[in-house]
């Protein structure tokens, strides 16, 4: 059976004034369907770059990324957009809701783009998703009137809009207080329990308690790959 995610010798480098900076350096890894993976590491270790490549937001300098059934390097820009809209749900640290659309409209927007659900069903589906994340009563408000926790819940509802098998989250609790962060992580656990593959980039140590696997990055390399079954013992990963 195909893996949920497969990276083969992926490198991503940027050219800056001081020269080339290698953000991700020859990383190969496999993530299976239904895994809940945390990517941890210090700032600048390459976590977000790696996640962006999984989401198709960035393209690798070399190597290949295969995710949710597609070889991303073979897709055009519009092909990537269509693939992302159908198969990947994205959650960001700063929520990134569109400020002039209501919460419900923000959730409906990916459905509008993907056209996976009929027009007539989209509002009801958005309301069901908002109920699920606990903010159905905020559906017709603009994002700016919601608290940070409510906005992140709305963003998660938006990520689920097209029922994607893969959820990618970049510091989803980084801008929330601990109680709200805990509630958001619980939500991720529930979604993982439904069989979704989830990859979370995080600094939060609390995540360790709920994920099934933790990848530690340092200077663009995976320096540890720990599974819950091994009690997150440091894996033998060459640097």
């Amino acid at each position: 059976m195909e893996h949920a995610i497969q990276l083969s010798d992926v490198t991503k480098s940027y050219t800056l004034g001081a020269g080339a900076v290698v953000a991700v350096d020859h990383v190969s890894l496999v993530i299976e369907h239904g895994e809940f993976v945390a990517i941890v590491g210090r700032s600048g270790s390459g976590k977000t770059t790696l996640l962006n490549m999984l989401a198709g937001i960035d393209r690798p300098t070399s190597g290949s990324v295969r995710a949710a059934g597609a070889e991303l390097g073979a897709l055009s820009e519009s092909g990537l957009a269509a693939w992302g809209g159908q198969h990947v749900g994205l959650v960001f640290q700063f929520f990134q809701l569109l400020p002039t659309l209501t919460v419900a409209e923000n959730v409906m927007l990916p459905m509008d783009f993907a056209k996976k659900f009929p027009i007539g069903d989209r509002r009801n589906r958005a309301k069901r998703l908002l109920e699920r994340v606990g903010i159905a009563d905020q559906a017709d408000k603009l994002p700016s009137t919601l608290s940070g926790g409510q906005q992140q819940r709305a963003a998660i509802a938006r990520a689920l809009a097209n029922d994607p098998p893969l959820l990618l989250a970049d510091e989803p609790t980084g801008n929330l207080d601990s109680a709200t962060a805990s509630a958001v992580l619980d939500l991720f656990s529930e979604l993982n329990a439904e069989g979704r593959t989830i990859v979370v980039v995080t600094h939060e140590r609390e995540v360790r308690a709920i994920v099934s696997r933790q990848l530690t990055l340092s200077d663009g390399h995976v320096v540890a790959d720990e599974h819950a079954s091994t009690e997150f013992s440091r894996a033998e990963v060459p640097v």
Partner: protein
Amino acid sequence: MSGLLRVKLRRDLRASWSRLTLMVIAIAISLTVFGGVVLARAASTRETRDAYTSTEPASATILLDEPVSTEQMADIVEQVRSLPGVIEATGRTQFSSAVVVNGMPRGMPMQLFAATPDDAMRMVRFEITGATWPPSPNEIFVARDALAVLGISVGDTLGVETPSGETIELTVAGTVYDPSLSPAAQEQTGRAYISTAALAASGRPVELDQLKLQVAEPGQTTPSENRQAIIPVARNVGDWLRSEYGLSVREIQVPPPYKHPHQWQVDSLLVALLAGGLAALLLSTILVANMLNNLFSQQIPQIGIMKAVGARSGRIARQYIAMTIVVAVAATALAVPAATYIGRSAADYFLGSSASTRQTWPLRGGLTRSSSPSDSGSHH
């Protein structure tokens, strides 16, 4: 564009209304200036040509060294009409004079055009209001735009000096619109039209020194628009005058056919204004480009979000193109009526206020009213 993107567009426009309003105003102002100048140029060129054409201008004017009597000129005209290529001819004269209005001298000179009372006015015509051709021997018709410039009203008495040096007093009996002349204010000269009978009243013999011709190409009955075809016919008439009447020809004028003699003045002014309009357009373009850049810079995160949740670039682009179109349409909607007004006003000014006083647009409508010989006069 999807329904939600339309909603987003509408709300984004509302959220940025002050910036967009400034943009609309900037574009509208520059478009108004530029459009007004372009419209004025197009209108004045077209209307000037149409109006000038309707005066049945001369293809050529032959200036005699020594003027001839009105009787001899009538004889010449009669015979010239039968010469090859000539389809119409008339004899005229013109002179300049200081002018005294109701006993008060004016600082500006006046150019007077004279034709015989029996001139049929089939060519070199003009429009008379308040009277008919010919004026009585003691009457004068004054160009409409010269009234204000010289402080003259209908009914006033004008004192002018004839070519022979006598001063005659004439009553202003009517006004004239002559599309072949530039505005009096622009030229700082008044224009007036008299019958040679007025000159005869001074007791001296009346003489004419201009023979005006309309020339047609072989087999044609309408005046030629080909200057090269007119020149040999005019030369032939000049030679004929020398050989048949022993007259000395001072000059043969063959202007570009149907080209208004003063169009270049309007063109020069409009080109200068057009340069100003282009500068305004350029400044506005820079301003709008900066504003759009700022506006879209603010939208970059939103563009990223939309792409991240599945929007194709084309759909996103359409939204911002639509926003730009809304601004452009609003600005154009404001600019078009303003530019039209400015263009028409400017054209009115360049055409000697003719359009507004005749209450018609285009000008040709007014001129057709003067097609009857009895309602027309001549000049030059």
